[in-house]
């Protein structure tokens, strides 16, 4: 029994499947059911294969239905009268916890495959040739693709991230639906923007959807919330987003506490010697205590805070992961030394650089070569056509050239035609004819290249056949050395069939071509 080594999370007895009593097992990676009195499972599904579970409530029978990605479904009927409902709910809850984990993985894999096929037309063609025409199975096709790709996929996945429009919230224009309601149109882009800008909302979403709320309800509440309409005064009503507001506040505060790295914009340390409390003529300026602030002022300052936070978050989301790394590092350093101003140890470089920048008058300096070297092209054609392979050149010094010129001059001066060895005119002209285009020795030049003779569709087909065969060969060679029975079986068994099939395909194509030609 294979399940022995697995961790069993839940066992529910007296569960019927296909009118047969049995026991339902929920294990770490799969759900299984075995009929009463037998020690093997007749039903076993990996969680990753399960698309969804349905637990119809209203029915008389207490059931749990699992729908697989393949479209099959399995019904379990909980038949223990007294505890059926409880059993089902226990199983359901556990599944609820487990499924998302595996779902993500399954989806990820599917997505990954999909992405690869979309991005690589050659692969897609290969997939069509081999999998769709059932030369090899899909699993086999992907088996050594995915692992192969996992390596370089990180590089290829490094597409430039698109930033977020600062006005994405403005793009959600509410429309009146005619009967005292508002309609918001959300696109996945906007949702993505909201999630990236406000991680707190994303977290709420993950917590609540779909167990507590449907997606629609979630967004309805979002738009109704005080959180979204920050200018409205908190009515004290608790909604799920009031926490988000607090989190934002906290985030903002932590950003503020972290302080700024550029000393030139640090308003806190701008003043050298502030007047002590009580001195000065306008120290009584607007008291910031919230006690004597009107409601309106409070809401105004909330708006201002919100704009600052929003802009900062948009900026941070746009900066993406690349900028995160140094940021993290910086925040780490600043957190390790806490609030102590002994941060001098790492501060000076930034400070020095900034101050140097500030006192620099670039135009007062003599232009030094580095800054403004005009692009001076000696060979502009090389610039516009790209680099040409450098031919081995012999460089000659001017002395060499002068010497050789002298030599030639001497040679010419001493030149005496040797008339006895001159070629007859007819031979000369025939030689010229042979060397001219179309002549005897220039046959190759006039020949059409093969790629111009064959129509492109035939070429394409041939190419596909070739790559398909190549793929099969790759599978073939990847079986060596044959050190597992599986490989052996693969080699002797279906690979041979595959080759046969590929060969047949090629043969069919060949005859088709022949027929077309004649």
């Amino acid at each position, binding site marked *: 029994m294979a399940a022995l080594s697995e961790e069993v999370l839940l066992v529910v007895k007296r569960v019927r499947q296909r009118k047969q009593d049995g026991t339902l097992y929920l294990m770490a990676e799969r759900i299984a059911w075995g009929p009463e009195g037998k020690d093997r499972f007749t039903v076993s599904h990996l969680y990753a294969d399960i698309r969804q579970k349905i637990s119809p409530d209203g029915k008389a029978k207490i059931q749990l239905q699992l729908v697989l990605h393949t479209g099959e479904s399995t019904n379990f009927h909980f038949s223990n009268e007294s505890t059926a409902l409880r059993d089902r709910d226990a199983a359901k809850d556990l599944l609820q916890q487990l499924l998302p984990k595996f779902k993500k993985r399954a989806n990820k894999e599917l997505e990954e495959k999909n992405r690869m096929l979309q991005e690589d037309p050659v692969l897609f063609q290969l997939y069509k040739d081999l999998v769709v025409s059932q030369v090899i199975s899909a699993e086999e096709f992907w088996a050594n693709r995915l692992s192969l790709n996992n390596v370089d996929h990180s590089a290829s996945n490094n597409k430039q991230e698109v930033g977020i429009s600062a006005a994405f919230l403005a793009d959600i224009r509410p429309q009146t639906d005619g009967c005292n309601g508002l309609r918001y149109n959300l696109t996945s882009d906007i949702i993505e923007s909201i999630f990236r800008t406000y991680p707190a909302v994303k977290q709420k979403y993950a917590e609540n959807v779909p167990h507590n709320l449907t997606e629609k309800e979630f967004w309805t509440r979002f738009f109704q919330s005080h959180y979204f309409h920050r200018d409205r005064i908190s009515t004290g009503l608790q909604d799920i987003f009031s926490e988000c507001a607090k989190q934002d506040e906290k985030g903002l505060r932590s950003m503020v506490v972290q302080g700024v790295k550029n000393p030139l914009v640090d308003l806190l340390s701008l003043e050298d010697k502030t007047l002590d409390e009580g001195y000065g*003529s306008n120290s009584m300026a607007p008291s910031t205590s919230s006690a004597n602030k009107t409601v309106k002022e409070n809401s105004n300052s909330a708006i201002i805070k919100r704009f600052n936070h929003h802009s900062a978050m948009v900026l941070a989301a746009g900066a993406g992961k690349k900028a995160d790394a140094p940021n993290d590092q910086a925040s780490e350093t600043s957190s390790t030394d806490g609030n102590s101003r002994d941060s001098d140890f790492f501060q000076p470089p930034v400070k020095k650089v900034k101050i140097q920048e500030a006192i620099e008058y670039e135009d007062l300096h003599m232009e030094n070569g580095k800054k403004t070297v005009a692009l001076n092209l000696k060979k502009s054609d090389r610039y516009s056509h790209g680099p040409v392979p450098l031919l081995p050149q012999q460089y000659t010094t001017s002395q060499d050239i002068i010497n050789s010129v002298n030599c030639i001059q001497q040679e010419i001066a001493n030149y005496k035609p040797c008339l006895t060895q001159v070629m007859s005119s007819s031979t000369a002209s025939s030689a010229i004819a042979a060397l001219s285009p179309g002549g005897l020795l220039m046959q190759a030049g006039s020949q059409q290249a093969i790629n111009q003779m064959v129509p492109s569709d035939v070429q394409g087909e041939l190419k596909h056949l070739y790559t398909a065969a190549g793929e099969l060969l790759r599978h073939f060679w990847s079986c060596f050395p044959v050190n597992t029975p599986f490989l052996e079986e693969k080699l002797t068994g279906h690979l041979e069939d595959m080759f046969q099939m590929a060969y047949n395909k090629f043969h069919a194509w060949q005859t088709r071509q022949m027929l077309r030609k004649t």
Partner: protein
Amino acid sequence: MKLNIEGLLVYFPYDYIYPEQYSYMLELKRTLDAKGHGVLEMPSGTGKTISLLSLIVAYQRAYPLEVTKLIYCSRTVPEIEKVVEELRKLMEYYSKEAGEKNNFLALALSSRKNLCVHPEVSSLRFGKEVDGKCHSLTASYIRAQRHSNPSLPSCRFYEEFDALGRQVPLPAGVYNLDDLKDFGRRKGWCPYYLARYSIVHANIIVYSYHYLLDPKIADLVSKELAKKSVVVFDEAHNIDNVCIDSMSVNITRRTLDRSQANVETLQSTILKIKETDAAKLKEEYRRLVEGLKEANVARETDIYMSNPVLPDEVLQEAVPGSIRTAEHFVGFMKRFLEYLKARLRIHHVVQESAPQFLKDISEKVCIDRKPLRFCAERLRSLLRTLEIADIADFSAITLISNFATLVSTYSKGFTIIIEPFEDRTPTIANPVLHFSCMDPSIAIKPVFERFQSVIITSGTLSPLDIYPRILDFHPVTTASFTMTLARTCLCPLVCNLRNPQHGAFWEGGEGPVIRNYGNLLLEMSAIVPDGIVAFFTSYIYMENIVASWYEQGILENVQRNKLIFIETPDAAETSMALEKYQEACENGRGAILLSVARGKVSEGIDFVHHFGRAVIMFGVPYVYTQSRILKARLEYLRDQFQIRENDFLTFDAMRHAAQCVGRAIRGKTDYGLMIFADKRYARADKRGKLPRWIQEHLTDGSLNLTIDETVQLSKHFLRQMAQPFKQEDQLGLSLLTLEQLQSEEMLQKIAQIAHQV
């Protein structure tokens, strides 16, 4: 290059020079020659600092007996550090060109907060805490106590400095704040006290205004600076406010409550000491009888804050008998506190002069003027006698005693205003006693009298004649310099938007104006690359406009073009917003910063190059005219200096507007739009008060523009400016080589740059 400024050899650490720099140095030299004071306005970004430093250092080298010291005062810590770095550049050039090592000592001085290297003390957040903690470790009596009880904590940096630091002077060189700290760490000496000790023999000191203008600090730090010094106040357009702030006091009910607690602590401490160490109090009494000045015994670490009045006003006599004993003094303070409490229990505003106040206090509680004058000094003496470690705790009672001394010393130039509540919240009782200085010349007078040359300079000092009047001095040079430009890199435009009626805003009747403001911002956000800074006249006004814009959906549309950041009253939050703003400008997204004129951003932050391609000034930044303190000051200005109220208000508004728009241009390679979104700027009285270098480019064609016209002109300007701008384009016009500078023709041109007033 080496320049010849009327016979003085000046090393200038660059290969080229701006014509106005040459002109500036000429005027500066003439001022120094005449041993007089000067007011010089030169546009920002034309290398004012390096010109000043080059010339004065050259002058010091040529005439070491005439000018012994340069005291360079700037406003913010980054400014101070920038000046020192420029100085370092100059000194490096000197040693490279002259070949010999310069024996100049130049250093920056800042508060303990910026200089302390003690691991625990320096980790405190606020300057006041750092000062207090430092005092509790280094005061002389605490160090004396440590002789008997070595387990008391100490600051090893100060101990080391005290033992060794004074014997060898600081080696010559340029010391920025970080250099001082490094040096201090290396030697194990306290950088703060080292710097304070070294300024006496340093050739150049760079520090903040307060060290010279605030009598409480100046007396402590700058007392021994030589008379033959040149004092430079850079960014001096707000110097009158600094002077006023350093002499003004506000007392709230909270201050009084805390003072009450302080007095009680004092009383119990006195009782305790009486039981254990009565001799100490007797000794203090004896000292006071003999009128021995505390200076004889005081050590540098003991005094937290010196006398709040100016040195000439400090009485040179013994403390009067009525407050000589500790108990009597505490009783005296209690009485004074009770009187103040009674004065704060009012329901209507009271305004009176200092003599009226003194008369009232003598009638009601029989407190005479004389003991009041000694209050500050007597309290300091007592605090030292009682060996109070944490002086910061006693800030409230110190404030009260300072007030007592000030009010009894000055009969003119001050006013007392007691307000029972804030104007905006008439229902909430929050009585405040403002003791307000109205005459900035009081605080700065000793500086002008003591030092042979005081230079007041900034990018925006127009109209120049007003500063000598309000600061009450007679400059030998008053000059404004223009900016020579190879291309017109600044583009001031006046948009003909109607100004919102003051007050009408609150009733919500200003919809159209606000909408127009919003449209202007929206249009500009679409055409200006990278950063835009918009300034509003006050914070509350900005809050309301932002809320209206939000409701009208204007900000949403702006967000399609740029990110929005907004200044808040919280400095830390604003710093964060500023940094993000710069980040957004840097990465090409572009951003808008909404900010407030007279706020910290408008005063201390530069928006160079792409950080500020356009500045929009919404409205005219008049000061809040309903304030009683301002009204009193305006009255005083009218009576004493014959400056009309309106002139002063406009001057004040325009200097702030100029400060705001000037933030965008920080050099000749920079460029930026300056949009004045209020038609009042087109009027001659406003226009005429803008700095000359902005006024010059404000042609009739750029006045009274509609929003559309503004956008068109801006587009045109931006497109032109985006073309490559090379050094050759500037050479000979706004940038000169040494040869070009020496040509006769150029010298004539340069003579026109300076505009004498």
